[in-house]
């Protein structure tokens, strides 16, 4: 028994990438595991950073800007009524919120995707080719905009060959293959249930950074649909400290609204 959950491990890891005095972004999301990866875990990451090295970091949850993130302020459900009443410092028209990151003022943007490839291209639009489409997904949302303008992107996905693919079927967000003319920095961090990955600066290719405690490098290679860059030595992802766990469990998310998606209509855990 390791004494922490996967969602806690990922939240602590992601929090290290939140910088002080930057605007960070999560969407409004759907429910269940997908919501934990795209919204719940990232929100806890930002709140952890606010309690530590980034007290001036802010979060944008759609048009709700700079909400109070400790549990006592967070609504029990995410109906529209509750989102409108969530204590925050600013509610602005969505097109103005989107304007913030077009000006290069978006720090870390959190995303999830149906497919991610070796260059960090994401796909949330369709599986299959246009002529032979297996699944038409809902569409790009603002992900394309984040790919173009966010300073940094953290994507969280399941670690399997269906998701981590050689080439995505549709590029809904641009990775590192060609960023000519794009103001943003693209993806910097890939979090999965097995490992943490980043991108090699010289090639823009995805590289293994650390494996979660108990996971073997071979297991990561086996479950990745392309040839991942493997450094000569691969450390373990740092487990959460006692203090970090206490902060998450007592102050930030005691009711598991975020890390088990209990704020949505569909509670879940990241462990399968």
């Amino acid at each position, binding site marked *: 028994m390791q004494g922490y959950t996967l969602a806690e491990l990922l939240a602590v890891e992601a929090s290290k990438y939140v910088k002080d005095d930057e605007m960070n972004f999560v969407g409004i999301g759907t*429910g269940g595991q997908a919501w934990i990866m795209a919204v719940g875990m990232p929100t806890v990451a930002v709140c952890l950073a606010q309690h530590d090295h980034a007290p001036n970091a802010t979060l944008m949850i759609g048009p709700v800007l700079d909400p109070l993130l400790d549990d006592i302020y967070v609504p029990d459900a995410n109906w529209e009524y509750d989102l*409108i009443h969530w204590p925050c410092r600013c509610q602005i028209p969505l097109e103005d919120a989107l304007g913030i990151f077009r000006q290069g003022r978006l720090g870390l943007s959190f995303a999830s995707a149906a497919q991610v490839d070796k260059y960090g291209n994401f796909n949330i639009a369709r599986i299959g080719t246009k002529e032979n489409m297996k699944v038409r997904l*809902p*569409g790009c949302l*603002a992900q*394309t905009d984040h790919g173009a303008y966010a300073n940094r992107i953290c994507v969280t996905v399941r670690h399997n060959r269906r998701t981590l693919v050689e080439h995505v079927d549709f590029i809904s*967000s641009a990775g590192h293959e060609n960023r000519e003319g*794009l103001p943003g920095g693209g993806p910097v961090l890939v979090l999965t249930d097995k490992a943490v990955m980043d991108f090699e600066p010289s090639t823009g290719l995805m590289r293994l950074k650390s494996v979660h405690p108990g996971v073997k490098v071979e297991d990561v290679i086996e479950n990745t649909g392309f040839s991942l860059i493997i450094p000569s030595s691969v450390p373990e992802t740092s487990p959460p400290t006692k203090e970090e766990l206490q902060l998450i469990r007592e102050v930030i998310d005691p009711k598991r609204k975020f890390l088990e998606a209990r704020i949505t209509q569909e509670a879940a855990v990241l462990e399968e």
Partner: protein
Amino acid sequence: MKMERINKLITLKQAGEMISDGDKVAIAGSLIRRHPMALVHEIVRQKKKNLTILGWNNGIDFDMLIGAECVKEAHSSYVGLSNVGLAPNFRRAVQEGKVRFVDHSETCAIDKFRAGATGAPYALSKTPLHNDLQKNPEYQKEVTDPFTGEKWIALEAFRPNIAIMHAHRADIYGNVQLDPQRMMDNETDILICKSADKVIVTVEEIVEEEEIIRTPAQTVLSKFFVDAVVLAPYGAHPNSCDLRYDFDIQHSRLYRDMSLSQEGFIEYMDKYVYSSSNWEEYLEKIGKDRLDAITRTDIIRR
């Protein structure tokens, strides 16, 4: 010659008749929020054909129009049912190539409405660089910034024939208001309406002009922009309507389940849309208990 003031309050049926086959129809609302469903039902009942539907973030509004075969082309950044899942008719029609769908990002779709709303021929964006938005011809017009020489993509303005929106209240002259506390996702509705040649707004309530005059800062569309107003309480159902009522997740799940097959969708439409001669009959089928369950009873602060 002495003229009368124009009373813009019309029936849902009359509103539907303002839309012609082949029109470009812009639909306000976002995701599962405040899409003008009463008017969507009426468009379906009047069997409009070959519409091009435009939005920035859509759900059951697009899905139903596509399933009912009113649509030849659709533009949005999203067509889905949020936490209820994929939009079944949209998925089926696009996979089978029956409807041309043009993928946009949120800023690209909104920029195209803003260009239309401000009379500009196009908007400039870097969003489409190096991704598959450029697979559609709408994204292939490159322009060079005359000041820096940088490459940008020109996005042609959306200029819909008609825009349809659901709002909280209006007077009979077409002055449209939104409640002060609201989900700011839907502010784009205002740009959508201003981009169109004609605008129809359905509302939760009709108020006296004096009430509008008492609260003019809450008017988001002056009567100058609005061609017709229709009274349609719960007119966004099953979408949410800010602090007035929640997303009806129960009915949305029923819609999704029945729409998983073409036969099931036809059965849903027969039961809820085609056999209802107006919006009130649809609401009776949803039932008072269900509507009460999603209704918030707070007093709207002004």
